């Protein structure tokens, strides 16, 4: 299986970080992985994005142009990348900030109120982890334990953050199951 994912949002919404966490988690599962930050014309317009590939096969082009999944944390990101998603692909929409859903009928769409959930959890910064939880539940790219392990490794200096992030991932995943 090959997951080619674009994660996009405003600078500061933490899309680069969840991309790296997903990549790290894939590596921990002994998969082929790559992460590359927004490079190319889509850097314009104040949105940040990254391409993540997690695959059982060696990875060719690391820049994703036909994603199997899209995480859109804000409206400009959805506008920009929605048309590129492969038919049958997954789109995760941060419905706290994006009022519309998608116009397409050939993709699976999940609307996650990530900022509201993060506020309920008591830390507005974990909205990105909520959508990451939803993404991995919707795509099966990696399992959530791998993401937690990756988080523990990347934030070895801040073990106190681990618990709230795990809860945020669980909450995000719960939106897919119901």
């Amino acid at each position, binding site marked *: 299986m090959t997951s080619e994912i674009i994660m996009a949002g405003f600078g500061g919404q933490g899309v680069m970080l969840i991309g*790296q966490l997903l*990549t790290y988690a894939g590596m921990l599962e002994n998969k082929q992985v*790559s992460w*590359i930050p927004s*490079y*190319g014309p889509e850097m314009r317009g104040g949105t940040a994005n990254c391409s993540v590939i997690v695959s059982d096969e060696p*990875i*060719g082009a*690391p*820049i994703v142009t036909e994603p199997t999944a899209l995480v859109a944390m804000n409206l400009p990101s959805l506008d920009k990348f929605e048309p590129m998603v492969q038919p049958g692909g997954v789109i995760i929409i941060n419905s706290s900030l994006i009022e519309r859903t998608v116009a397409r009928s050939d993709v699976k769409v999940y609307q996650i109120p990530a900022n509201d959930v993060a506020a309920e959890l008591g830390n507005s910064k974990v909205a990105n982890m909520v959508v990451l939880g939803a993404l991995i539940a919707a795509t099966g790219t990696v399992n959530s334990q791998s993401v937690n392990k990756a988080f523990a490794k990347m934030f070895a200096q801040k073990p106190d953050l681990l618990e709230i992030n795990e809860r945020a991932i669980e909450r995000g995943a719960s939106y897919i199951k119901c």
Partner: protein
Amino acid sequence: MAEKILMKGNEAIGEAAIVAGCRRYFGYPITPQTELTEYMAKRMPQVGGVFLQAESEVAAINMVYGAAGTGVRVMTSSSSPGISLKQEGISYIAGAELPCVIVNIMRGGPGLGGIQPGQADYFQATKGGGHGDYRNIVLAPNSVQEIVDMTIQAFDLADQYRNPVMLLGDGALGQMMEPVEFKATDTVPSIKAWAANGMRGRTQPNIINSLHLQPEKLEQHNIHLQQKYAAIQKNETRWEELYTEDADLILVAYGITSRIARSAMEKARSESYKVGLIRPQTLWPFPAAPFAKYAKTAKAFLAVELSAGQMVEDVRLAVNGVRPVAFYGRTGGMIPSPKAVYEQIVKTLKERGGN
């Protein structure tokens, strides 16, 4: 086996240099290679090395000249506009036959250009760049792991041939993260009897110099350099090939572009197009041999670059008119998608592949 870690290309270069025994780094910040300069600022003091942020790229390369002349392993890095500034120093380093590693994480040009990836410094890297008849050894990795392996190899090649080695990457390779492994390396800096590190009991001074005022002596020096370059061509040419044996069309690409070409090739293969790929890993010396070989079996070649067409000239020299060589390039920091390259494959096969 060492544990795999996830690293950015730029940072991987820095760690690999340290693994290779490099303890001197002189640089100047420029996008998109700045993470490397920052990495060295953090790491060098931890390993007892020297990090110095120079006042300019010109100063940095001359600091490299000084350090390399004393016999230590030394590196500098920059991106395209900064590499242009270093050219004077690189010519002196080549003339004085000093080993060092120069990293160019290319961006689009000319002039200030942009900060997105490019491959338009191929001519500069492989054809001299500065003045005089000289060559850099130019290594072109296409993954973060190969960045690590080639960085270490670069120091060995530099020492072995007393020659500058350029690691030629691009903004995408510098910024991307992939898992890497730092294998225990047996790289050992060679003993440098020529180094000017203080006489320390030697009876004759050592002199680091590129000036030869007598034409006879300068010609002799050039003949010596050319013999050295011939040996490098013979011994150090590297490339990778995929699906070339039965290919009607052979793609040619290096660095990040080779990965896009590979994806396009796989799509074409799945559609029953017989497409292969030659990926030069050394850009100088350029791997001419596989082109001479496959010019007999393939119907055409297609070079793909992030430039207006630079490496394609070496491909055409190597194919030597036996087969058509097509070109597809994007410039300015634009990166073609695998689909765009695939379309070029189909187009080229239609136009040039038919018998």
